[in-house]
């Protein structure tokens, strides 16, 4: 589990008894941000009609996220495009950078994913109340439910709504942590079984690496698309 350890890099910084020192987690957040910005900066430096490779990468990810948003949340979600794009890119790059050996996976820490999810949850709730006023509470009352079942359904709906930040954050955190732990375990097997029996876990390790890269992308996508779905609930009250 040492790969998940957070340790201080540089001096201890404290603001009124709260430790906000620069750690390896902060370092990899910064590296992700800088990588994204560099790629997109070089991709948009020379905008041409026939795009270069980096430009194409930027444009493809732009249209990918744009299509994802318009498919799930409709045209009303356009103002939130840059947020969801940044979110998707940040989570994706944190996940992907974590796949490089000896790096730190930012998203394997519950506190990071929970802060992101809580921010999304609070933001979506505020947007919902701004757009619909108290009518947003109709979200908890699905139409076409018999009166007898209504109290039960409302309670379930409220619980499921309130558990959104937890499910969103735990999904990403658990996936990343479990994947990295599995790879660590199989890596350990390779070492302990040595040259005789180490080949099987080595093969598993290779397969797991591929799987983890897929999971890294998939979880970023799921995180972004669930954000879109929550946003859709707040923007277009269907119930």
């Amino acid at each position: 589990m040492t790969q998940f350890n957070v340790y201080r890099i540089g001096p201890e910084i404290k603001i009124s008894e709260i430790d906000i020192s620069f750690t390896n987690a902060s370092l990899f957040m910064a590296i992700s941000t800088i990588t994204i910005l560099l790629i997109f900066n070089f991709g948009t430096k020379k905008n041409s009609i026939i795009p270069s490779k980096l430009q194409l990468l930027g444009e493809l990810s732009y249209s990918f996220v744009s299509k994802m948003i318009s498919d799930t949340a409709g045209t009303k979600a356009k103002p939130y495009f840059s947020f969801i794009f940044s979110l998707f890119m940040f989570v994706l790059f944190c996940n992907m950078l974590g796949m490089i050996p000896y790096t730190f996976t930012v998203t394997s820490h519950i506190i990071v994913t929970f802060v992101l999810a809580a921010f999304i949850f609070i933001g979506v709730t505020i947007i919902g109340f701004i757009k619909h006023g108290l009518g947003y509470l109709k979200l908890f009352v699905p139409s076409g439910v018999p009166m007898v079942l209504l109290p039960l359904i409302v309670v379930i709906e409220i619980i499921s709504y309130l558990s959104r930040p937890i499910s969103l954050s735990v999904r990403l955190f658990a996936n990343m942590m479990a994947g990295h732990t599995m790879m660590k375990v199989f890596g350990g097997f390779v070492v302990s079984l040595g040259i005789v029996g180490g080949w099987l876990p080595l093969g598993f390790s290779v397969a797991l690496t591929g799987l983890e890269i897929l999971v890294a992308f998939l979880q970023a996508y799921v995180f972004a698309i669930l954000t879109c779905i929550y946003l859709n609930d707040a923007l277009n009250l269907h119930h």
Partner: protein
Amino acid sequence: MFKKIIVKTLAVYFLSINFIQAAESGGMPQLNPEFWFSQIFWLVITFGILYLVLSKIILPKISDNLETRKSQVLENLELAEKQRNESEAKLKEFDNIILKSKIDAKNLFNESRKKLLDDINNKRQKLEEEIDKELKIVEAEIEELKKKSPEKINKIAIETSADVINQLIGVNVNNSSITAIVSDISSKNKTL
């Protein structure tokens, strides 16, 4: 009693030590709150910077470029469509011209043919008329000759027969009797 308390405190002490050790080394570092605030702080800063730079600088550029490309492609398509229509119109015009000239050529051909035929017919008629005239003249001449020929033949026959008779028997026969015989023979010949 005293013993019990000592055992209890020891147990709690060991348990808590175990718990702390688990949190620090064996357990999940994720649940150790030591650096939570640091992580939140740096997350807000890095993600905030990322969001600001992406939304204010980079994404507008990308979307502008996509729009420009879209409009340019549309423009090009429109231009191509226009040019296609133009060339189609030209092609039609060209076809019309060819059709027209074909009809013209046909007309011209027919006209000249008709003219030629008329000309030939006229000339032939004229020639035929001339030939008819000459034929008539010749026929008239022949008719005249035919009419005159029996008299002449009779005359010659009379003269020769008179000469022959004279030569044979030395007698001058009366012309009128010979004439009667000759006309008799010639009439017999005619009936033959």
